[in-house]
């Protein structure tokens, strides 16, 4: 299936090539293929159970694919690498359930996340330098948590935790960013603020946003890939996919 019509994948940011993952015979991903371009923001939508989270697990090294390959930046095969190695290559991930370190302050959460030497002894003797400190401070401004700097992350509201986790990704400075349902459980106002934040990030790096909230994806206004039963059902602008008969059937026929 040639969904993008490109002749070469060598310049792509991410190339998912015919990935299949089975859990006890059930195919959570079924010959899934798609391409993300450098600097692109992409939305991936699909009903619950479509395989969105599993797709992320495969790309970030948590789950090994049964078949197929995941190629980063044209020639790096992610299939053989573990989580830490994938992160080191410049891929960041926000989980579906907000997962911040509740017993650490907002600032410390960012300090643990910020790009730095990840080795054990480096961490033992690490002192936060001015560069990293100012980067953390500016990220705090950007995610709207400057006022909560010293608060325990566990005390934040649900929406604030989601933003903090996005901030934790930004300070890692990844080339490719995965956000799993960033607005799940957010109020309308929080969702709007998140749309603003993501729009602001556009072009800085490649971002893949996974959502099943159609209104949110519409508001983002980016290219959309629709996932269904572990493979791509449709791809294009939001208006295109919304008028696609297959998509209408899957979303309305359920």
């Amino acid at each position, binding site marked *: 299936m040639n969904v993008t019509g490109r002749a070469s994948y060598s310049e792509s940011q991410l190339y998912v090539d015919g990935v299949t993952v089975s859990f006890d015979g059930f195919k959570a991903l079924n010959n899934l293929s798609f391409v993300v371009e450098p600097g692109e923001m992409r939305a991936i939508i699909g009903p619950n159970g479509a395989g969105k989270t599993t797709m992320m697990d495969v790309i*970030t090294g*948590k789950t090994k694919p049964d078949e197929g390959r995941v190629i980063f930046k044209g020639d790096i095969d992610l299939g053989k690498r*573990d*989580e*830490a190695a994938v*992160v*080191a290559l410049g891929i*960041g*991930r926000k*989980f579906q359930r907000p*997962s*911040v*370190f*509740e*017993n*650490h302050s907002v600032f*410390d959460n960012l*300090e*643990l*996340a910020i790009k730095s030497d*990840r*080795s*054990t002894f480096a*961490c*033992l*003797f*690490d002192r*936060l330098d001015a560069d990293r400190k100012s980067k953390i401070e500016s990220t705090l401004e950007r995610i709207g948590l400057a006022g909560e700097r010293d608060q325990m992350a566990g005390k934040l509201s649900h929406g604030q935790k989601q933003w903090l986790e996005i901030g*934790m990704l930004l300070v*890692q400075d990844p080339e490719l960013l995965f956000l799993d349902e960033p607005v799940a459980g957010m109020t309308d106002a929080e969702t709007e603020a998140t749309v603003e934040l993501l729009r602001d990030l556009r072009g800085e790096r490649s971002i893949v946003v996974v959502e099943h909230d159609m209104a949110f994806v519409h508001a983002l206004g980016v290219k959309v890939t629709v996932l269904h039963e572990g493979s791509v059902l449709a791809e294009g602008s939001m208006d295109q996919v919304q008028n696609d008969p297959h998509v209408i059937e899957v979303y309305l026929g359920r």
Partner: protein
Amino acid sequence: MSLLQRLYAPQAQEPGKGRLASAVLLSVLAAIAVLVPLLNLTVPADSAFHVPTYLVSLLGKYLCFAMLALSIDLIWGFCGILSLGHGAFFALGGYAMGMYMMRQIGDRGVYGNAELPDFMVFLNWKELPWYWYGFDFFPFAVVMALFVPGLLAFVFGWLTFRSRVSGVYLSIITQAMTYALMLAFFRNDMGFGGNNGLTDFKDLLGFDLQSDNTRAVLLAATCVALAGCYLMCRSIVASKLGRLITAIRDDEARVRFLGYRVENFKLFVFVLSAMIAGLAGALYVPQVGIINPGEFAPANSIEAVIWVAIGGRGTLYGAIAGGVLVNYAKTVLTGVIPEIWLFALGGMFIAVTLFFPKGLVGSLPAAVDWVKRRIGKRNPPASSSLAEEPGQ
């Protein structure tokens, strides 16, 4: 939450209370190191202020247990790994020191053999096994007291953390580890004195172990070592590595996706913790005069975890308080009604786990507040409310 779940649930303590507690702890240790030997050595035995020698050694023993508790708190309270095998590291450190003191006996043993310890003569051994080489030399024995537990922890941790064994499974394997070592050390042909272990020590670095002076110095050395280990643990938990291991405790998967190799961090803390336990064992043996395979008993490791739970895990100083207080209670209770001790310990453990998960020191601030409120009720704060209104 069930009792078991509570043991594996993180128990985060309020930050910022550490400074005062550290100051108190270090002052108390300094006072013990100086005053107890003074009151033992210089005050005449008939004075009310005299501290008898048995008490000096008893205190030293408690402080060694406190150091073991400290090592468990570092790995359990901060990194979330419930080790039920730390007694093994303690015992290995103890054996290393015991081997040195066996060599110190020289030809003063029952058989008068300068080459071999008594138990080897008894077993008809002709020469010293290779793994006893070097133990004539004190610094070597000290290094081994740290290195052997560290090495065991490294091998154990390397195998388990890399295959992502955690939680109850890991705890059970640590129990199996200490049990296996106990069986091995019970065997005569292992060359560690079998059933009887190592005992009848005469002196340490040439100083008579029975003399009051030696005992006083051992107590002071234990205080210094405990204070040093405490300060080291404090600086570790205050470092970025410390924040990282608590993050691992709270959400291991998240830490992996930040790009850290979780198993390496666990391994580092586990090895360090085992070495502290080994040092505690090395200080313990000269003060109690014996080390035998019973120290590897799985129940010993569980008991040490209970001290930490009762004292308050995740604070370091709480573990030290737990190690001392619970063992003091044990001395008192077993002196009166020995049969009741295990029930009392089990009862305290369950009560603390269910009702005071922060342990004694963690619950202290709440208790102080409660007392203050009670006092406040009795004396209505009439004067203070006036003072707060400057306009009046």
